[in-house]
C-alpha cells in the first residue's frame, strides 16, 4: 500500500486543478494527491489519502445506501416547465434540455423506496450536477410526493441534500417549494415516522432553510459547506475575512446545529441504526394514526451496540479492507444501481 502511494505521488501533476470525472487519474481537492479514479470510486468517492469527501453521483449514492436489489424508483413522472419564460444569457428551457440530456434525468432529484439494512425507507437524493441541485417546482414536488408516499407505506424518509438553493429561473414559484416541502413532511410527522436529513456538500439557501433542516435528525457528511447565505455573499456584505472552517459541517456541529457529522463509509450503518431506534418507541394508542413501532430483536440490538462502539472512530479512508469490500460491492451492485430516468 505504501509503495503504491509513493508511485501515485510520483505521477506528474496535470496542469489543471479540476477533478476531471472522465480522467483515469484525479486530483483530490482536499490534499491535491493524484488518485486512481477506480480507487476513489471504490472508496465511495472519499479520498483514500486524506478522507476528503468528494461529491458523489446520485446513482452511486443510491447504490451505497439501498440494500442490493431493493431500490424501486418513484420519481420521474413530473418534468419541469418554464413557467416564467426565463431568459438570462441563455433561455432556461435550453439549459434544462442540455442538462437533461447530460444527466438523463428530468430534474435534480431521484426518489424511491429501498431497504436500508432491512429497514423500509424512502430515499430522496438530490443531484448537484443538475443545475447545481437547485430546487424548483419539480424537485419540490418529488420531495413532497416522496414524503407522502413514504407515510402511506410506513417508511421512514431519508433525504440526501446537495443543492445551491432555490432555482431562481422559476422565481417565486421556487421560493414556494420551501413551504411546499415543509407542509408535505407533516404526513410523516402525523404517522410518527422518522425523517432523517443528511446534508452533503454543498447544502445552501432555500434547501437549507426548508425541509433539509427540518429532519427529526439532521446530520452531515464531513467537510460539507452548509449555509443559508454563501461565503461570497457574506464576505461582500460584511467586508471581513471569514473564520476558519466557517459554515463547514464540523463548525456547525460545534455551534449545535447538527446532530452529528458522519463519515460516508459508515453512513448507511449509522442511518439504519438511527431509524431502527427512532421506530422502536412505545406503542401509541390504537387509533392515533401512528405507524406500528418496529420491535428491536436481540440481534439488531447487538448490531447497534457494535456499530456505536466503532463508528465514531472508523473512517473508510483508513480502512483498506473496507475499501476493498466497497469495491466488491461496487462490482456486484453495478447492475442493481438506480437506472437513469
Amino acid at each position, binding site marked *: 500500500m505504501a509503495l503504491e502511494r509513493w508511485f501515485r505521488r510520483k505521477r506528474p501533476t496535470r496542469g489543471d486543478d479540476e477533478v476531471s470525472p472522465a480522467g483515469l487519474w484525479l486530483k483530490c481537492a482536499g490534499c491535491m494527491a493524484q488518485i486512481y479514479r477506480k480507487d476513489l470510486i471504490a472508496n465511495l468517492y472519499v479520498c483514500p489519502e486524506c478522507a476528503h469527501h468528494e461529491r458523489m453521483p446520485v446513482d452511486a449514492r443510491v447504490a451505497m445506501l439501498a440494500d442490493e436489489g431493493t431500490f424501486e424508483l418513484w420519481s420521474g413522472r413530473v418534468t419541469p416547465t418554464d413557467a416564467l419564460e426565463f431568459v438570462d444569457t441563455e433561455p432556461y428551457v435550453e439549459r434544462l434540455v442540455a442538462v437533461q440530456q447530460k444527466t438523463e434525468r428530468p430534474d435534480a432529484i431521484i426518489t424511491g423506496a429501498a431497504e436500508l439494512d432491512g429497514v423500509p425507507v424512502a430515499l430522496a437524493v438530490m443531484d448537484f450536477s443538475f443545475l447545481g441541485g437547485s430546487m424548483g417546482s419539480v424537485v419540490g414536488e418529488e420531495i413532497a410526493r416522496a414524503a407522502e408516499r413514504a407515510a402511506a407505506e410506513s417508511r421512514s424518509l431519508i433525504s440526501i441534500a446537495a443543492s445551491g438553493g*432555490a432555482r431562481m429561473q422559476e422565481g*417565486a414559484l421556487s421560493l414556494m417549494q420551501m413551504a411546499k416541502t415543509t407542509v408535505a413532511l*407533516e404526513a410523516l410527522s402525523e404517522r410518527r415516522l422518522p425523517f432523517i436529513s443528511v446534508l452533503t456538500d454543498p447544502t445552501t439557501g432555500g434547501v437549507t432553510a426548508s*425541509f433539509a*433542516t427540518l429532519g427529526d435528525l439532521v446530520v452531515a457528511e464531513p467537510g460539507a459547506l452548509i449555509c443559508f447565505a454563501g461565503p461570497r455573499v457574506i464576505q461582500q456584505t460584511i467586508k471581513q475575512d471569514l473564520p476558519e472552517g466557517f459554515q463547514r459541517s464540523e463548525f456547525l456541529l460545534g455551534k*449545535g446545529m447538527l446532530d452529528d457529522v458522519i463519515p460516508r463509509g459508515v453512513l448507511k450503518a449509522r442511518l439504519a441504526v438511527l431509524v431502527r431506534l427512532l421506530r422502536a418507541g412505545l406503542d401509541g394508542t390504537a387509533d392515533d394514526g401512528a405507524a406500528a413501532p418496529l420491535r428491536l430483536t436481540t440481534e439488531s440490538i447487538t448490531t447497534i451496540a457494535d456499530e456505536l462502539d466503532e463508528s465514531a472512530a472508523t473512517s473508510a479512508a483508513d480502512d483498506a479492507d473496507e475499501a476493498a469490500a466497497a469495491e466488491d460491492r461496487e462490482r456486484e451492485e453495478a447492475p442493481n444501481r438506480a437506472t437513469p430516468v
Partner: protein
Amino acid sequence: MPLPFEKPIDELEARIRDMRGYADDQHVDLSGEIAALERRLASLTRETFAKLSRWQRVQVARAAGRPTALDYLGKVVEGFTELHGDRALGDDPALVGGVARLGDMGVVVLAQQKGRDTKENILRNFGMAHPSGYRKALRLFDLADKFRLPVLSLIDTPGAYPGIAAEEQGQAWVIAACIQRMSRLRVPAVSVIIGEGGSGGALALGVANRVLILEHAIYSVISPESCAAIRWRDAAEAPSAAEALKLTADDLLEQGVVDDVVAEPLGGAHKDPAGAIDLVRAAVEREFAALRDVPSEVLMRERRARFRRMGRFLEAA
C-alpha cells in the same frame, strides 16, 4: 428624492404648488388653471404608473417615504403593544412583534421594519432580521395559538441578514422552523407584503391562509441585483433580472403565489401614505372577517393545501 421616472410628475406638482402660492399671495383666482393642471397631473401619473417596467416597480417598492410596517401598525390595528425578545439571545429590532386589537378581537402582529431614515435604518438593519428575530416570531406564534389570537404579518425585507453571527446562530434553521410553525397555526393568519418580499426571510412570515400584496410591492426568490450578479455576472443587469424574475404583484397573482392585490393610491403608497394605510386596513379587516369563524382544523388543512399546490410542472400521462 423622486424616482427617476417621477421627475415630470414632481415638476408638475411643483408648478401647482407655485401657482397656489402665487394665487394666495396676490389674491387672484387661478382655480381654473390649477384644476386643469391637477387633471393633467392625474393623467400623467396614471399613464406613468400604468406602464412601469418591473425594475421601476422594484424602485417603487423600495421608495423612500413609502409607509413602513410600524406606520401601518399605527392605523391598521389599534393599541399595538410591542413584545420584545426571543427569550434566548436578544431582541431584534428588524423584526417587530406584539399584540393589538383589530375590531373586537385581539391579534398577534409580526412585522419586518425598515428604517424611515438613516439612523433608523441602522437600528433596524434595513429590515434584515437575524435568527433572534425569527426566534421571537416562533415564540409569538406559540402565544397566538395558546390564546387563539389570529396572526397578522406585514412583510417588508430585502431578506434575512447574511452575516457571520447569523449563520452561526442557524439562520437557515430558524427560517425553516418559522415556515413550519406558521403552517401549523391553529388560528387564522393573514400576510400582507407591503414593500419588499425578499426570499426565505420574507416567506418565514408568509405561510398564511391569505397572502395579500400591495400593488407596487414585490416578492422574489432573490433580489434582482443578486440574480444579475449570478446569472449575468453583472449587477448592472438588475433591470433585466427584474424582468426575468416576474416579481410584481400582477405576476405573483398570475402564479398563484398571492391571493389578492391591494390597490395603492395613485402615484404609489409613498405619495399618499395615509391613503395606502386605509386601503390596507380595509383589506385586512375583510380577510379576517372571512376567516374568523373557520374551524381550526379547516384553517390548518386549507393553509397546508394552499402551499402544497404551489409550483408548475408537467406530468407524464
